[in-house]
């Protein structure tokens, strides 16, 4: 709900792996806040205790004695070991376990995503399992997926660089013209969620919204069957623009 102080939080995370981004964010924020608080306290202490006054004389030191080196060195090493090294460790774990761990399960839904100025095109392979064929299911601005199954994406932009952004999944992946990029996610809940563009793509970048509709298995199958039927009817061999798909990049 949107009451202060919780109203500033990101939208609900309905994904399998979105917790990683939030977790690392708060981990970093906590450690950073501790470090920053110490810095501010040190500044405030010096400002108060060591301000110039009658008889006040600064300590003459260049900070090159062994004790100073030790203190500075230890603190710097402490910052690096407790913060930086942990951030790297956690990120590497996330990368290995999720981000680039493309799903290989047979129930993976594959979708080709082609953003354009200023809308989203989606393509499913259809019954033949091959992309860019007559039986492909193609949707415009609406991506339907089943909950509980991995969804693997191939992305390629039509015109300029766009970025496929699912706020409720903490997911972002750039789509570039000319080359295919990949991403994947798994929804844990059904519902309607938003797709946003997160790379400046022209003056209407701000309204390039799409809909992610997560359905249960039954509803998804029913929709897919209907869509496949539609696709057969809609296929027009004379329309080259319609065949914007590409060979799936594994």
């Amino acid at each position, binding site marked *: 709900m949107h009451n202060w102080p919780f109203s500033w939080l990101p939208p609900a995370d309905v994904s399998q792996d979105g917790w990683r981004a939030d977790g690392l964010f708060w981990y970093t924020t906590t450690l950073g806040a501790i470090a920053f608080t110490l810095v501010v306290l040190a500044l405030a202490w010096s400002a108060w205790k060591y301000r110039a006054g009658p008889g006040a004389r*600064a300590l003459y030191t260049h900070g090159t004695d062994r004790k100073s080196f030790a203190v500075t060195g230890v603190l710097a090493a402490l910052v690096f070991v407790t913060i930086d090294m942990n951030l790297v460790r956690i990120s590497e774990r996330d990368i290995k376990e999720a981000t680039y761990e493309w799903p290989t399960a047979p129930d993976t839904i594959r979708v080709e995503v082609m953003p354009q100025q200023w809308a989203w095109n989606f393509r499913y392979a259809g019954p033949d399992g091959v992309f860019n064929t007559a039986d492909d299911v193609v949707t415009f601005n609406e991506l339907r997926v089943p909950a509980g199954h991995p969804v693997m994406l191939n992305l390629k932009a039509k015109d300029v660089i766009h970025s496929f952004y699912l706020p409720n999944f903490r997911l972002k992946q750039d789509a570039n013209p000319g080359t295919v990029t990949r991403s994947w996610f798994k929804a844990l809940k059904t519902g309607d969620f938003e797709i946003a563009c997160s790379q400046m793509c022209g003056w209407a970048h701000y309204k390039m919204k799409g809909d992610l509709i997560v359905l249960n298995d039954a509803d998804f199958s029913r929709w897919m069957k209907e869509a496949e039927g539609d696709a057969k009817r809609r296929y027009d061999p004379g329309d080259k623009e319609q065949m914007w798909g590409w060979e799936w990049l594994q």
Partner: protein
Amino acid sequence: MADTTHLRRLYAGADFHAEQHIHPEPTSFVSRYVFSMDHKVIAKQFLWYGLAFLALGGTMAMMIRWQIAHPGTAFPVLGELLWPESGGVMPPQAYASFFTMHGTLMIFFAITPILIGAFGNLLIPLMIGARDMAFPTLNMLSFWTNVLAGTAMIVSFFVPMGAAAGGWQSYPTLSTLAGQPGAGQTLWIAGVFLTGSASIMGAVNYITTVVRLRAPGMGYFQMPLSVWGIWLTAILNALFVPVLAAGVLLLFLDRTFGSHFFLAGAAVTKGGGDPILYQHLFWIFGHPEVYILILPAWGIVSDLLSFFSRKPAFGYKATAISMSVITFLSMVVYGHHMFVVGMSPLLSQGFMTLTMLISIPSAVFFLNWLGTMWRGAIRFATPMLFSVGVVFVFGLGGLTGLHLGAISSDIYLHDSYFVVGHFHLTMAASVLLGAFAAIYFWFPKMFGKMMNETLGKWHFWLTIVPITVVFCGMLVVGYGGMQRRLYNTDAYAFLQHLHPVNVWVTRAALFLGASQFLFVVNFLSSLVAGKKASENPWEVGTLEWTVPSPPPHHNFDEIPLVVNGPHEFSHPEVKGKDWLAQNEPIRSETEPAARAAAGS
């Protein structure tokens, strides 16, 4: 205590460097104030030039914030003037040009001229004991080339279809002819190429001057940290601005001659290029660029903290070395701007690890800042307030870099307001506060008058508070999910609850803008009617304070012999005052005893 025995031997009458000659004093108005070769005049030219663009870029920022907080309403006065056909409401196309040009102008035409052009020029010769830069004519050309660049940028606002509108990075394919059909983007390229050339000219000059024209006794580790900061910046400028030049040159060829370096996508028929190549070239420049922008401020703050704490800079050598290490590391971390582009995971991980390494030297010099103030006798004049302000905002901003350097948090935060908050804290707030610290501090030397302390203190407090609110607010909405470069958030339900935060950020931004009038009034009135400045009103030891305010054309009557480091404050052997000039030997009978007494 710095070992100056070798310097004292020099003083005893042994070998000296040769004297420097100086170009003759100019006589005509044009040679004195327009095409001057005097580094002090060129510094002032850059200062006025940079402040003017700062005002322009800042006004644009106010208008951008207005549109975000009050979409569909006209910006007072300027809105009606610029967009009468939409009732004074900024159209989305204009909005895109505004954030593009705000970034471009602030980086290349405000920060660079003020910190590097003005203070680099003013400080380097005076602080190293030279009469002028190594190449005075090149110096003059550098300023005027920049003016040409700025003209191209301003003109670009008035061409059909307006200024460039693809973001300040101008990524293709949005920045290709198809994406940005007007002349605005081409003029942007011309402007960047010209300002880049000016930067390189300046960099070659600064580097050579520091290497060759230091006064006798001024070793690298006797130079003020301000000089270190500007010198390291110049090295990065010389090496990496050319890579940007290569990138925008290829973009220019794509736009003008139909080449295919960056063209790809459905429109390309004859074998496409690679838009991501541009991003590589851009960020190979772009990451060093952010260090280019902050290094002078780091150096200046390091010096000012020492000056006003009346205490030697803590760990001076370690600070200089840390800044050098960061300079080097900045060359190999650029990929952290490209984590969501689709680079190989191995490459991304490499960049992440290297990026994290920067924490170590950063922590060292940051701790040295705190160490300088500790057990000092701190005088809180306006320059000191702003310097402490830099410590505060840079500490905050630097820590948010951690969120962005780690891949799995960066993927969510990429292209969000969290990034905007981060780089404004580290780059805009830190550099701006650093620039103010420098201006308040060296205004007496430049113009021979003192600025008003009361106005200065009010300016500080009425700046630091809103600046923190503005950019922390951006961190909040960024984590909340809001992307950059949005004309409004109407399309997205997930952003609606962040609107009140945006409204507060805008209010703080407008307040921040208004507070700057205190500075403008102070600056202008002090120029006209400020109290006359003595040779050394701040009682510090660097060489620029051993000459009159303002200095004569030839700077030094005689080239000084340096016998001390730049931060010899509160030396126990010095009686009657708590500072020593760099060319002022300690009168001490028993040197070994004195060294023991200093206790280090």
